[in-house]
């Protein structure tokens, strides 16, 4: 069972790593934060799977912290984005 759980964790991490291509390609900041959100969720799933494989109960706390950080990251992005003047074009937004 442990081998299967570690394998599933590796698969999910590989998927999340593929999703990070979206950070490179953009085009907008929102697409990038979405890929970061996927990294957060996938990281939580991978940590939980590894914790179940090793029988270490403390990994649930790590996953909880990751969930909190992912939420903070998203809200920091939204606050920065809505705080700036609307309709103003920025050099990073090519499209």
């Amino acid at each position, binding site marked *: 069972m442990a081998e299967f759980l570690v394998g599933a964790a590796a698969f*999910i991490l590989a998927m999340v790593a593929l999703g990070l291509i979206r950070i490179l390609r953009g085009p907008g900041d929102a697409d990038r934060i979405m890929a970061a959100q996927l990294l957060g969720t996938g990281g939580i799933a991978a940590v939980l799977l590894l914790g179940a494989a090793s029988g270490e109960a403390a990994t649930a706390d790590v996953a909880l912290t990751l969930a909190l950080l992912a939420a903070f990251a998203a809200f920091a992005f939204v606050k920065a984005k809505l705080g700036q003047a609307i309709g103003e074009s920025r050099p990073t937004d090519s499209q």
Partner: protein
Amino acid sequence: MKLFLDLWTLVGVLVGAFFFFAGTVGLLRFPDSLTRLHALSKADNLGLGLVVLGLLPQVDSVAAGIKLIGIWLLVLLSGATASQWIARTLRQSGPGP
């Protein structure tokens, strides 16, 4: 009984991993930001949810199981709220539908 619980874990984790795969493919292949947001929500809600559901038979105590469900609920709530706000920034900065 042990076999049934292991089978439950196997199916739950496999289907959850498939939804992470679907979320990544959607994030990479869908044409615009709002559809990508939709794909991301699938990975958040269903992918992690099914992985947690699959892991429930493997935990030692009831408290550990409740903690797993609590993590999923936190991700669900923050993901749903964040998706609404990200869609709002898209609507205000990009060209309207």
